[in-house]
């Protein structure tokens, strides 16, 4: 794919980032570089018209222009280059090219009859690309797909890969779903990919014995025209990705804060999930048996590619509302007891501190008393301690020891109701999922499930795109609530 203006912008941005060096990591330059990279990537990864709303935002560029007014003062050395780069964007966006259609019309027709798959590396862009093609092709001719859809057994007459090979998982090429794969990439990117056996003791060493070669559509780049950085894989820098979302996190510094991990989800969403031991969420795991696809999974075991189910409509925790229905007339009494001892415990901690309270509890034979557990016991997501002795110690500490056994039993009723609620929700979801086209869920990465009247509201299945290794202490109110970070981190 040849495009002089895009090439100039693309390579110019790389050159500018190199000139910045370590300064590129400064808070000032991060949003500037991120926005421009986002546009650049969107152009090359989708081949949408340069001014398409899915990849270009006039508001964002206008804000960047305003933002750059300070650069003359703060970074005078880089000011001219920064302004110059930004000045290339608007003319680029006003171009009337239609690179996607141009490419598709130049393709050789597949030798076999059948559908063509157009592979887009970024899920967010798939709906826009599909809509762009709709007036010109039928879905029977060309299907816009994600790499995940190419994991299935279905084969195509031809696969057209948009972007260099290294923007896509290796299996697209190593486990191809077509005899013919065309790669459409900017001519200034070499597009090499790693090939070779995966086993160190492989019985087969010759690459020639593997699948037919991929046909690159781009012309070989002119000698000496490439910058060395073009070879680099688009690296998802975890620090950048999560730093931005953590910046917006409602950090809880008080004793009621809960340790949480941040998960990046499809559709530019993010969510904090409690990271304490024992915490879990409902997931859909496509790689499991149908009967086992919906299950409760420890937060620590959640991996990219899985789908987590989060409440998106309807108040409160969906498990709690079902559990309360199961508790019936006893729900009010049990929940009142739960609130009472937790509030008293929080009050004790507020008047002192976590460490002192832990020491007191250990003195009362509470063997599990540490700061992490204490936070968990204070949180709404905890029902009771694991052992009666630990619960009795807490009751003694908060002046409720006369009611220890009664309250322990009441918490036991809540616990049992929560378990039954979990099974009921799981069965409900299994029935719904059985009637749902999960291919669409895999393609788009998120899907709503309306819950029955007994539960109310809806759940949304979000594909997990990435997970933070570190944890932060956040307000309990922010847990399990999907949000959209204002500025979504982007690939380099």
């Amino acid at each position, binding site marked *: 794919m040849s495009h002089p203006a895009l090439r100039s912008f693309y390579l110019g941005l790389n050159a500018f980032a190199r000139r910045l060096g370590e300064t590129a990591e400064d808070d000032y330059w991060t949003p500037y570089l991120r926005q421009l990279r986002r546009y650049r990537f969107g152009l090359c990864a989708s081949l949408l018209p340069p001014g398409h709303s899915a990849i270009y935002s006039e508001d964002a560029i206008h804000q960047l222009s305003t933002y750059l007014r300070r650069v003359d003062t703060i970074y005078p050395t880089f000011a001219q280059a920064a302004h110059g780069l930004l000045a290339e964007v608007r003319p680029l966006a006003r171009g009337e090219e239609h690179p996607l259609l141009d490419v598709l019309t130049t393709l050789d027709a597949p030798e076999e009859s059948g559908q063509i798959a157009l592979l887009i590396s970024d899920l967010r862009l798939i709906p826009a690309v599909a809509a762009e093609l709709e007036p010109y092709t039928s879905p029977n001719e060309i299907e816009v797909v994600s790499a995940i859809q*190419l*994991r299935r*057994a279905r084969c195509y007459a031809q696969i057209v890969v948009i972007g260099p090979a290294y923007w896509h998982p*290796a*299996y697209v090429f*190593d*486990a*191809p779903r077509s005899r013919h794969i065309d790669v459409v990439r900017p001519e200034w990117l070499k597009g090499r990919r790693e090939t070779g*056996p*995966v*086993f*160190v*003791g*492989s*019985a*087969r060493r010759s690459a020639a*014995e*593997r*699948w037919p070669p991929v046909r690159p559509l781009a012309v070989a780049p002119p000698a000496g025209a490439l910058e060395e950085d073009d070879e680099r894989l688009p690296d998802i820098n975890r620090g950048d990705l999560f730093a931005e979302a953590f910046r917006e996190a409602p950090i809880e510094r008080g004793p009621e804060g809960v340790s949480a991990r941040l998960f990046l989800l499809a559709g530019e969403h993010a969510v904090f999930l409690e990271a304490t031991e024992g915490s879990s969420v409902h997931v859909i795991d496509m*790689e*499991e*048996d*149908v*009967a*086992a696809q919906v*299950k409760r999974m420890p937060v620590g075991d959640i*991996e990219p*590619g899985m789908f987590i189910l989060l409440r998106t409509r309807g108040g409160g925790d969906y498990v709690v509302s079902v559990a309360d229905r199961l508790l019936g007339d006893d729900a009010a009494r049990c929940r009142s007891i739960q609130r009472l001892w937790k509030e008293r415990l929080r009050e004790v901690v507020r008047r002192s501190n976590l460490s002192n309270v832990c020491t007191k509890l250990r003195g009362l034979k509470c063997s599990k008393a540490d700061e992490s557990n204490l936070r968990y016991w204070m949180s709404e997501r905890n029902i009771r301690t694991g052992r009666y002795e630990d619960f009795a110690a807490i009751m003694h500490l908060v002046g409720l020891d006369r009611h220890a056994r009664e309250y322990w039993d009441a918490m036991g009723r809540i616990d049992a109701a929560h378990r039954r609620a979990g099974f009921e929700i799981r069965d409900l979801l299994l029935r719904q999922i059985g009637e749902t086209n999960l291919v669409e869920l895999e393609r788009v990465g998120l899907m709503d499930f309306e819950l029955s009247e007994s539960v109310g509201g809806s759940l949304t299945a979000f594909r997990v795109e990435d997970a933070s290794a570190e944890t932060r202490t956040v307000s309990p109110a922010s847990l399990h609530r999907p949000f959209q970070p204002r500025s979504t981190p982007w690939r380099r």
Partner: protein
Amino acid sequence: MSEEGVNGRKSVLPADLYLSNAGEKAALPEWSRFFVSAGSSLASRMEAGYRYTTGVALPISAYAAAFAALGIVAARSSIPPGPENLGEYVEFLRGLPIDSAVFVRSGNRKLKGLFRGVRTDNGLKLFGVQLEDRSSGGLTRWIPAAQAMSIEVADTPVKKLPKRQKGQIVVSKRELVQQNRFAGLALALGDVYDFVTYSRLECTIVGVASRLNEEITAITLSVKSSSHGGFLDGTLQHLLRIREFLRPGQAYRSVVVSTGTQSEKLTQAEAPAVVIFDGATGFLKRRNDWGNSHRLVVLDRTERHFEEAVAVLNQEYVQNRADDRKVQVSERVPRGVELMSFRESGR
């Protein structure tokens, strides 16, 4: 085509098996014969003190484990459940816990019972099986060790013994052989009756149970039958006899362990000859559960944990392999399939 099987007897690779669809017959594709051969080759390894591992990386893993299991069962089908196994089985029964649920074959009937241990009477070792409830006397039959093979461990517990038990009539030998002609021909079985009445764990497949069920029970295979002037039809299940897909009490040769299973009761006597890991997840979770069994690791390049499983297998190859001896697969490795094999010592 055939290759030497265990004990020097010829085992049959089903080159004369066909895929059957709406009356049309097609020869098994090359890649399926490769997996049959891969399984058979592993099952034929008999060197004491060594465990072989074969890893395969595939563009798609559908049916790979099923056909590999066929090769394993076929290779070992020539081993008779006769006297050579009796000694091992007697030792196994000696270690069976009291009150274990068992079946006893008696004539053309099968009775359920509770194991009552072993005793010696006039130098004769006897195994006790209680067949009736205590309230009616608790009839216990003492079976000589020579007939130990008539005692079979049940898969499901016995909640309560009947007061009087006649037992279930099992199909007569002649009828059983008749019903299992497909298996007899496809595997060139010397004794069809033994094959379908005696359980012996040849192969364990760790994978997604529902998918394996579909692969093993859904497609129809055919074998030429000169005596019937045409073809006999069956499924892979007729050949693999997977316990989870049979009725309770039926004799099995293979077992499926779901990747989602948290724990599985495994006794030493139930260690299979070969374990097939159908997918990376099962391999990563359970790769050390059967220390004495050969392993076939089937990895799909498109699955989530492919790279992780490859890394583990590579590490085992580098750190654990005893020498450069490999499992030789007689069929050509199909295009797109990558294979690695090695053996470890001290098992």
